[in-house]
């Protein structure tokens, strides 16, 4: 059940927008497609919706094969039983809120009484009962987004698809809507695919995140997994701030370019050189001389080159071990101050350097 995508590809003329993408999404699972603009997220989602015709691969929704161009099978969008929220909301300006939400039921010939009760329920869920007879032009952006949401969930679709639904909202509203969309999906217990280029959205809402780059999947995992154990420089960089230390093999272990031996987290063996990736919040910043040696902790001496005071803490850039590393600390240090960085081995993750 849920959604199953196998070796999906989509070509525009000679250009491959997506080249061989496979994943499974279980019922009740919330999965994000995350990646930079132009990497093929929207195209993947639209292929699932049937708004774009895939050029290869297979797609099943709820156990039913809906797209298999090799066999000449293409179920049109209106027969796929999906709920979708568009980036532009796509709330029809010539219909009232109630008519907008009722549309998926009314085109399917649901009786008026049934329709009215389901619409009322859907509007209640998104908190718009009191605006049912307004027209979209009389609604704020956030309210229009709720209309789109109500329209997507009405009549219990088999899957829910979201294409950057929050990108047109202001920051405050966005955070509120995140929680709301997540709760809603949990309640309905159906598979959801959420396209975004905002890593916070992806990390905070998803059960799993699929990271894409140039039409391909580069890593799939839970938000924690992705953040803590990125498998490439691209993923490490894309899901959060990261410091990268160039490393090469030295005996059994690793060393930085200036020859310091570096302890790293156990992981897959790489080639003769690699990058050690560390998140800023995992770097302990110590004043120049303070050295509190501990097992399994790398101690690197460096110089503060930049400092940005952000309120709760200061973000420092420190040159150490031949790299520029970001670190957060509450103490105040001037630029040029000598410091020591403490990085626990478990927080230094190896990724290939190419």
């Amino acid at each position, binding site marked *: 059940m849920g959604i199953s995508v196998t070796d999906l590809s989509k070509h525009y003329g000679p250009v491959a927008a997506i080249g061989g993408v496979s994943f499974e999404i279980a019922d009740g699972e919330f999965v994000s497609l995350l990646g930079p603009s132009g990497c093929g997220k929207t195209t993947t989602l639209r292929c699932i919706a049937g708004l774009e015709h895939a050029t290869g691969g297979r797609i099943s929704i709820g156990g039913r094969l809906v797209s298999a161009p090799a066999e000449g099978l293409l179920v049109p969008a209106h*027969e796929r039983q999906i709920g979708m929220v568009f980036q532009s909301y796509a709330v029809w300006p010539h219909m009232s809120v109630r008519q907008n939400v009722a549309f998926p039921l009314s085109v399917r010939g649901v009786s008026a009484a049934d329709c009215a009760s389901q619409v009322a329920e859907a509007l209640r869920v998104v908190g718009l009962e009191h605006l049912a007879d307004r027209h979209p032009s009389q609604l704020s952006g956030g309210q229009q987004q709720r209309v789109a949401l109500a329209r997507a969930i009405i009549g219990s679709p088999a899957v829910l698809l979201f294409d950057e639904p929050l990108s047109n909202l202001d920051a405050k509203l966005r955070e509120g809507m995140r929680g709301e969309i997540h709760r809603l999906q949990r309640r309905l217990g159906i598979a959801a695919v959420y396209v975004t280029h905002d890593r916070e959205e992806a990390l905070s809402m998803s059960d799993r995140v699929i990271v894409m780059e140039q039409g391909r999947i580069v890593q799939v995992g839970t938000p924690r997994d992705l953040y803590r154990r990125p498998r490439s420089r691209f993923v490490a960089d894309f899901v959060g701030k990261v410091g990268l230390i160039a490393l090469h093999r030295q005996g059994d272990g690793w060393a930085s370019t200036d020859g310091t031996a570096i302890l790293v987290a156990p992981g897959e063996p790489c080639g003769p050189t690699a990058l050690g990736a560390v998140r800023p919040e995992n770097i302990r910043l110590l004043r120049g001389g303070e050295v509190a040696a501990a097992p399994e902790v790398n101690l690197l001496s460096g110089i503060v080159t930049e400092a940005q005071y952000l309120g709760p803490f200061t973000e420092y850039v420190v040159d150490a071990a031949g790299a520029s590393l970001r670190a957060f600390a509450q103490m105040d240090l001037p630029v040029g101050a000598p410091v020591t960085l403490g990085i626990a081995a478990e927080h230094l993750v190896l990724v290939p350097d190419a």
Partner: protein
Amino acid sequence: MTGIAKRAGTRGGAASERILHGLYLLTFAAVLALVMLPISALIYGSFRTSAPGEPVGEWTLRNYENLASQGVLNSMWTTLWIGLVSAAFCIILGTALALVVHRTDFRWPRLMTTLIGLAFYFPSFIVAMAWIIMGSPGGVVNAVLGDLLGLEWPRVDIYSAFGIVFVSVLHQVPFVYLTVRGPIIHMDASYEEAARAAGATPMTVMRRVTLPLLGYSLASSFILVFVLSIEQFAVPALIGIPGRVTMLATQLYLLVRFSPVDYGLAAAIGLALSAITGAAIWAQRRITRAGRLTTVTGKAGRVAPIPLGRWRWAANLFCFGFISLALLLPMVILIYTSLLRWFTANPFAGMYTWRNYVFMWESDSTWQSLWNTLIVSGVGAVMGVTLGLMCSYFTLRLRPKGHGWLDLLVVLPFGVPGIVLGLGLLWAYAFLPLPLYGTIAVIIVAFVTRFLPYATETVGGQMVQIDRSLEEAAWVGGANRLRAAQRIILPLIAPSVQGAYFLLFMAFFREISAAILLYSANTKVISISIWAFFEQANWGQASALSVATTFVIFAILLVIGWLVSAGRRF
């Protein structure tokens, strides 16, 4: 989960596809026939020695050789320079009007917009007739100059190239005004405010920022007016034929209607004229496409109006002077002429009578032509808009195989002057085994073909603005394509469909050039009846019918304006 079962009940997907496919084929066939029949008939005719339908003719290149004859070259030259000079005057006057009305503290912008709108719908052949009555050698102006003021000099003669330019400009300035008005109003105010902040005076801003930013709009408008000037028929025929100033459109008419008749040469001239207008339209579309990338952002801003100060009298004189020449004076003269028993330039010597109106009221043929006009306009516009709507939907939304060809076919009539289209149909229906010749249907066919691009531009202009996702949301919500078109697209473009209907109705009501070669005694439309009276030198009848027609047109405008503003309240 009862909901799933309910959502699953989608029917009619395949049927909807079949219906849409059928509609597409039908639309394609109709447009292909409408556009390509007259054009290919014309091309055929241009290689023949004989008149349409005559069995004796043979193949020849003579008609193209004759294009290079002195007579044709002269008319080509006349056509081009009259077109360029008219277009230049129109652009200057029309832009100046728009700037005065919308960018200064001119006192009556709304009144002026309304009056210019009326002038836009005032038929060109009626303006031409009025100015002939005023400006002919024995006309009102010379009478005033000579008899009233006792001057020996000057005298005016409307029957000249100058006369054609004069009347064309009066008729077409409103078109320029209406096309540059939008860009002037919607221009992003911040460009001009930045120039003001940089220390420029209002006049410098106008010269250095506003006008250059309007460049694309002005260039596009210039080309369109040039095309209107060289393809028009009524004005050069009414003024130019008596004055022996021949433009290509009138030469074509003379070759078909008066001996020595030469249909083949007429066809070649028609193609030559179409080549010029077609190339101009092509250039215009390139310019608009390039221009769309710049300047006008749609964020209308309020720039502080330029104070007219002590030049207010000049601005008022300019605006109301233009309206007087283009609208008021012609109306007064026509009313005056329609009330005279015999024409005289001196209103104190006139014998006044209602008999022109009485005759008009009692004449069966006038009623017949009114009835014909209403059928042609009412029914023809429905057909034109329906076809235009289909074309827009298929070329902009559904985009099935071959839609690019449909898109091209549909703009071709833009490049074909009305009288050329008429000639093409004349050739075509002489060969087709259809009993269409001499019926009202052939006039409808001609008008629909000629104005089809106007319908697709109007409807398509709004259709492209409907975000794709609005339609996609309906598909995802379970509506098949037909259903989505019907419930989402159609309601959203309804205003432009109404607009296109109105545009076509008014155009059909006034059109003369496409009908002049196709009408028969029973299929006269009002414009042709007026034309016929005027040709018989029956100025009284022509004026009475013109006055009546003008009042009908203005009454329709009034009703539509009222309906639109009533509709806006919801």
